[in-house]
């Protein structure tokens, strides 16, 4: 077994393999839970709620808590950082207390939003009061701090050398960092189980390739079985 030469490997034809596939029983209830886990972990509250109604699968967690998390995420995505901070602190005050970098990034985002709204004077005041002291306390943030404050120096922040900070992508970045921190603090799975299973499939097929020639699924999206190439 497994000496590495193709000719040594046993070959399983499609018909035989199909019988093996048929022997694998997949309970719809289990797959439904897998779907629910995906929706819940990724924060698709509405879909999760609908799925509960349509399939009778319980979400397993408090959808309200997810809503909190999603609303926090959306608040950042909308540019309402202050609201996000307040909500996070209500959810778990330890998060922003302990994660200095995240805390800094939120304040940075706040400044960016003030600039975006053209509230330059307020932005300046905010930078002095909230951002500068953090830079002093954590020298690691100084570089980023300088880049951010540079926004204030330009007439049009959108076309200045640090304009990337004004991108929506910056909001997304901050939102994701915050989302991950909340998930971690809730001692909840950060990743849904579905990708894990698909990774397992890829890993297991590669593993079995060393020992057998058999019909594989190469394209996960279609889930099509591909017959092994004919013997030479």
């Amino acid at each position, binding site marked *: 077994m497994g000496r590495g030469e193709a000719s040594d490997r046993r070959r399983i034809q499609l018909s035989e393999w199909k019988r093996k596939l048929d022997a694998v029983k997949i309970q719809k209830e289990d797959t439904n839970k897998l779907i629910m886990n995906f929706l819940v972990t990724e924060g698709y509250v509405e879909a999760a709620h609908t799925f509960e109604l349509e399939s009778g699968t319980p979400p397993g967690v408090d959808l309200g808590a997810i809503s909190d998390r999603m609303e926090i995420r959306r608040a950042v995505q909308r540019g309402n950082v202050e609201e996000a901070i307040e909500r996070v*602190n*209500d959810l778990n005050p330890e998060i922003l207390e302990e994660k200095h970098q995240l805390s800094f990034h939120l304040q940075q985002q706040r400044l960016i939003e003030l600039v975006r709204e053209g509230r330059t004077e307020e932005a300046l005041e905010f930078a002095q009061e909230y951002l500068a002291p953090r830079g002093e306390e954590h020298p690691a943030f100084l570089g980023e701090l300088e880049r951010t404050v540079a926004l204030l120096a330009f007439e049009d922040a959108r076309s200045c050398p640090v304009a990337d900070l004004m991108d929506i992508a910056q909001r997304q970045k901050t939102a994701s960092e915050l989302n991950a921190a909340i998930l971690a603090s809730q001692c909840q799975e950060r990743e849904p189980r579905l990708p894990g299973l698909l990774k397992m499939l890829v890993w297991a097929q590669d593993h079995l390739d060393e020992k057998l020639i058999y019909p594989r699924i190469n394209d996960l999206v279609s889930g099509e079985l591909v017959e092994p190439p004919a013997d030479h």
Partner: protein
Amino acid sequence: MVASPADLVAKLSSSGDRDARLKAVRDIKNVIIGNKQKKQVFVSLGAVPRVVELLSCDAGGPLLVQCAAAVGSFAYGLDAGVQAVLASGGVAHLLVALSSEDEAVVLAASRALKMVYQSPMAPAAHALAGSALTRLVWLLGAANLCVAEVAARVLARCCDTPEQQAAVLEAGGLGGLLALLAAAEPARREAAADALAALLSGSPAAASQAVRRAVLPVLVKLLGCTAVREGVPGALAALLDDCPALHRAAADADAIGRLAAFLQDERCSSRLKVGTLCALGTLCLDYEDHRRQLAEARVLPQIVRALDDPDAQVRAAACTCVRSMSRSVVALHCSRVGADVAPPLFRRLQDADLGIQATASATLCNVVLDTSPAQEAVLAAGGLATLVRLTSAPAAELRVNAAWALQNLMHHASADVRAAVLAALPWERVEALASDADARVQERAVKLLQNVFAYCTPRDVEAAQAWSGGVALRLLVSSANPAANVPPLRRSHSLYGLCNVAVSGEEAGRAAVMASGAVPHIVASLSDTDNAVRLAAVWCVIALSEPHGKPAAAQRVADLAAAGALAALRGLAEDPPSLDIHERDGDGGGEEGGAGDGGAAGEGGLLPGTGQEVLMRDEDEDVVLSSL
């Protein structure tokens, strides 16, 4: 933008409007979380007592939650904040809040307590009596694992005294913590192990041994966790405390290597350093091969540097660690440990912290023993003056250790060291030590004197006598007097001191002893009830009867016989109290021997409790026996 800090603080108590207060607390909380500077501002505006006051009144869940969160934030990362929380009684109110029916309040209070107890300034749990304790133990089993972890972290800080430990055990803490120890997440396991270590620390009960054995593998495993939690080494130190049986098991699992690796990491935080140094100190307390392992781990430079750390706790832990290392005779002789640690140890003798001074001086006692590089380092560092100054320190502990260090310094001292010590130590200090209020200091004084006359030449003896203004011998004679109220141990050392004068001073020394009025004491001591005293007296007789065949010696033997020595020796031979004395008595009766060259008992000794002092004394006696 929120209102100004002063406005917010004013709103906390001014109006009776509940919503306004709630909003003010929440605003303050949101400003101070993660913001040290703002915390400082609010603390100085007196916000903490006001928030704590709100926490104490029955203000309803939402307000309690906000207040608890604010209190927790104030207590995190800012010493002034912790102080303010403690001073305003915040901890007691948070503990009360643990018993709330409202789960959100319990969670918020737990988190706040965790923040408070993260600070080393947090109180030992004086308030953790009765219901609060029961509640905490109950929370160990909370479905919300975050709460359970917090409960464990708070409990870990509530086990400082045997009474507190007993109270936690009584409340059923052990079971809850063991259950938490089996949790999947390392953070939970670490919290449980930390609390268990604190709970079991110093308790010798057999049951606790079994639990410790169960906890040890978890802690050792956590040491290897990539995301190491800072508390693990400290918990390990607490677990190993007073439990030598576990030291081997921990070392088997390469705990020493793993701990040493922490010290090698430049990012090692103060807390991690303290725990690591304490754990290493404990592991090296009893076992020579553990000290060897630590020496081989090549972290001595880091440990030496830690002796000068700005953080007092790090310095104290480093002192403790070096003290354990210094118990190793072999390590001291074979490496430069002594020479490397001596200079920083001397700086620690002037540490602001008394405890550090005591540990440092105790460590120096060991370091300077018999190692010439260390002794030279002491001289070079100007340590002598410091040691001499410490002999008059207010704390008896320091006087004992200083005298002890001087005593060890004089043990087998080179001519340079001997001269330097006598020059630095005024005779009056020795006299003061000999009549110190503390008996341990008196004993050290005699032993110091004993070493002054040991292993040296007649000229050295003369010089030492001159140093004392001619009264050193008299001091030895008076403290060898069986009729005086002197403890046997000190009498025996005084006799050894006389013996040393006789041996090192040769003819002049022997004559001086004979003329000193010591003879009646020596003869009387031959039939003392104390073994050690009799043995020392026999040695004196032997020394005075040397060299055989010389007229002067014959005369001294005759004088001793006239004083009743022969009769006393015969009595010993017929009724030998110990084999040791029996044999030496026979030798004293007239055999050839070379006891003159250095057979005298110099008194060197490592600190008690190490088992080494005994070893050293055995060694000296071996020398004597073989030379006879």
